Structures are given as structure tokens and as C-alpha cells.
């Protein structure tokens, strides 16, 4: 008897919707509270902007995409069913917008332009792309700040699928499961894609340093 009750309890638990910390704000927005939408934007703008910057590799494009993401969210929130967390959905929207934008810009043409020769903004302000010339093991230079621009450049050379898994894993620090949910892939696929992406990136960097 107890076992049957426990079984039902478990089933009920499984059926319950995912507890989402943003649920309250979303509810308020759907009732017409524009301020609630502002709060959602404020709490996610940095993550969305940061991710789109790494995906796009360009500040202007990143801001443009991030705004598009929130406009999409504003328009489609009434259709958001709550099957996943809001943040998962938001990352999915962001990744999709970035992929579309990269396709639209014509990947090769855009990245072959001189957008990476100019100064690159970092937390510490602007810096120029330069590679230290010393006698360290080439790969050890990856530790140095100046190589950030180079890493970004090589990231841009990966295809969008590889880039998105590697960013979600290594910049956003998400689990394989979360990434699978965002990208609509199986966990095994995410695993192998992350590995593949890291190998490709490593090869590109190695080639750059051994020149």
C-alpha cells in the first residue's frame, strides 16, 4: 500500500513543472507589468551580451544581437510554455540569433575583414593584438592576457555548432545536460562535439604559435 502511494507521489513530482526563479516576473509581465520585463532584461543582459560577444566576436554586433534577443523574448513570452527554465529558453534564443546573424553576415567575408586587427576591448580597457616574442613553450603563451584576442579569433574560425558548445561549457560553465537541453541535442552528442571543438581549437592555436 505504502509502495503504491510512494509511486504516485513520484509520478506527481515528475509531472510538476520545473521550478523557475523567473516565474514570478514572467507572470507579472504577462499581466501587463512592463516593469517586470525591465527586471528580466536587467538580470540577464550581461549574460546574453557576453555570450553574443563571444559568438559574434565583435562588440557592435553583440549589442545588436542582444537587443534582438530581448525583442524576441518580449514578443514570444506569451507563447513560452514553461517546459524548460526561462534561462534555458533565453540561451536557446540567443544562440539561434547569433547563428542566424553569422549566416546573414556571410561568415567568411565578415571574419576575413580587418575587424580583429584593431584594438580589442577587455575588462582592463583596450588592448592591441600582439603576441609576445620570447622563448616560452608556444602553448604556454596561452596564459598571457594578450592572447585573448587571438583565442577569440580562432574561436571565430570554428563553425557555429562547435563554437556554441564550447562557449556554453567553458564560458557559461554549463553542464552537458543543460547544453543538450538548450541546443536540443542528446547528451552524448554534446560530449563528443565539445571534445571535437577543443581539439580543433587546440590545433589552430598550435599552428599559430609554431609559425
Amino acid at each position, binding site marked *: 500500500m505504502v509502495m503504491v502511494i510512494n509511486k504516485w507521489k513520484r509520478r506527481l513530482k515528475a509531472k510538476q513543472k520545473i521550478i523557475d526563479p523567473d516565474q514570478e516576473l514572467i507572470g507579472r509581465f504577462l499581466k501587463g*507589468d512592463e516593469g517586470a520585463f525591465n527586471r528580466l*532584461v536587467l538580470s540577464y543582459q550581461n549574460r546574453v551580451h557576453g555570450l553574443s560577444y563571444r559568438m559574434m566576436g565583435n562588440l557592435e554586433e553583440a549589442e545588436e544581437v542582444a*537587443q534582438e534577443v530581448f525583442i524576441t523574448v518580449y514578443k514570444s513570452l506569451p507563447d513560452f510554455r514553461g517546459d524548460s527554465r526561462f534561462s534555458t529558453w533565453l540561451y536557446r534564443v540567443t544562440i539561434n540569433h547569433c547563428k542566424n546573424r553569422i549566416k546573414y553576415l556571410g561568415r567568411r567575408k565578415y571574419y576575413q575583414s580587418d575587424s580583429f586587427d584593431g584594438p580589442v576591448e577587455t575588462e582592463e580597457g583596450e588592448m592591441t593584438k600582439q603576441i609576445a616574442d620570447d622563448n616560452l613553450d608556444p602553448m604556454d603563451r596561452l596564459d598571457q592576457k594578450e592572447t585573448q584576442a587571438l583565442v577569440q579569433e580562432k574561436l571565430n574560425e570554428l563553425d557555429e555548432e562547435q563554437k556554441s558548445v564550447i562557449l556554453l561549457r567553458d564560458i557559461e560553465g554549463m553542464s552537458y545536460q543543460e547544453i543538450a537541453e538548450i541546443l536540443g541535442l542528446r547528451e552524448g552528442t554534446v560530449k563528443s562535439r565539445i571534445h571535437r571543438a577543443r581539439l580543433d581549437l587546440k590545433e589552430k592555436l598550435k599552428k599559430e604559435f609554431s609559425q
Partner: protein
Amino acid sequence: MNKACEKFQDRFSDFIDRELNPEDWRGLEQHLEQCPECRQELRMLRLTTEAVRKLPVLPAPADFLIKLRQKMAREPGPVQAGVFRQATRWMIARPSLIAAGFVLVFSGAFLLGRFNPAAGIAMQHSEMDPVQAWVQPIAADNWRLEEAVPTKVSARVSTVYKVAAAPSPAGGSNLSMPAASSAGYARPELAESLSAKDEGEKSQEAQSHPQVFLQTPTQFVINLLRSDPAFQGAKIYPVSRGALAQTPEFLFRITISDQNFINALKWLADKKPLPGAIEESRKAFNLEIEKMPNPLKPTK
């Protein structure tokens, strides 16, 4: 690289991400101790991963929300709010309700038309002055005008004549007949309140021009701020000739000079709608906007 190495190297990412089960972990560690090639390979993969992890996350610009709201205001086609969309969907799902609404409105209009003789006549003889139609020539002592017609008549405010009828030769009933206004329909409720005519007229006027009357520069700026969705939830403090608006990131001081305020009143008198975004308002009314970092923003 031999086959065994390949098998181990496939697991390097799992190893870096700590996603290996303890058994595989031990196996891999044992192999690494013996194989310098694999050690070097793992080291490079780890450095690559670290390099990506060390990339700084660039936060959104501080005015991101304001720019976003401005963009949404410019967006071609309405960026529909959730509520409006839901309401439309709700209505579409219930056509019978809309039908019922139509029936109600039309039957209401029909009934009003029937029981409001002034309206009927005004409609039938539209070229006739509706007042003339109801105020009969004063026959000696039988009629007396209780209220004088106000000399100054606002275009918007209905002028109501109250005609008190002494027993008339024809009907013989003691009627208080409210009669028509310039718009051509009767407003009986106004006739009742005519004793307080002056106040009535004033408040009517204020209602029909809510934006023009009773507005100061401060109130005007606050209205502009309220009409900008980006400032929803912002704290607004009135100051002389303007207001302070505090958002999570910034403090805005928005003021308007007297001359520009007079120009703004002309704009309002033309009944143009307020521009939604404060940036548009700034252009339209020459607002002076000072943007400062929010002094109350918590520091990390």
C-alpha cells in the same frame, strides 16, 4: 600514436570536465604516468580550455535597457505586449461573445433613440436648430426662462437650456424639459446640476482637455516620463521645472525651460499624442537631460 593512446585521448575532455567515472579516471591516470605523448597532448588541450575559460565576459553597456526600449518603440509594427495579445486571442476564441456585444450595443442605441425624443428630432431635422425645435416661442406668462443663456460658450461644453413649463395651453402638464445642446442630443443629467453651473462648466472643460489644463512644467515632464516604457518602475522625484528619474543604473535630471514649455502647450492643444520614448520627447520639446550614474546603486 597507438590505438590505446587514441582511446585515452578521446576521454580527455571528460577528464578536464571531471565527467569521468572513477574507474576510467584511474585507468587514464595510470596511462598518463607511462605515456609522455599523451601527457603533452592533455596539457595542450587543458591550456586551450583554460584560455577559453579565461576570456572575460563583457557586460552589456549600462544604457542597454534604455536603448532596447527605444528600439522597441521604433520597431515597425507593434511590439505587442503580452496582455494585448492574450486579450485578442481570448476574443478570437469566443466569437459568440463579440456577437453578444454587438447585439447589446445596437439594441442599446435603438432603445435610447426611441426614448430620447430630442435625439430623434435632431436626427430627423438635422438642418433645424435643435434648440429652436424645443423651445417654443414664449407665450406671454405661460413660459419663463429660468436660466439665462451663458454669454460665453465654449465649443466643447454643451449649453443647456432649462425650460420650465407652466401649464401649457395644449398639454397642461408641468414639465421640466431639458433641451438640446450644440451636439444635437439632450443631456438631462446636466439640467439637474445646473444650479452648480459654473463649477460644472469648469470641470467639463478640464475633462475635455486634460493635458492642457492644470499642468505645470514639472507635471508635464513627469507625464512624459510615465509615457516612456523604459522608465516604468523608475523612481520619479519632482524638481523645479522638471523631474529626477532614478533607474537601477542612472539618475536622470530632466527639465524644460519656460519658453519650451509654452511651445509644448501648443503641441498639446493640437492634441498630438505624447512621444513614447524620452529621447523622442527631448527632440520634440527641447528637454534638457542630464545623465548621471545612480548614486544609490549598490557597489560590489
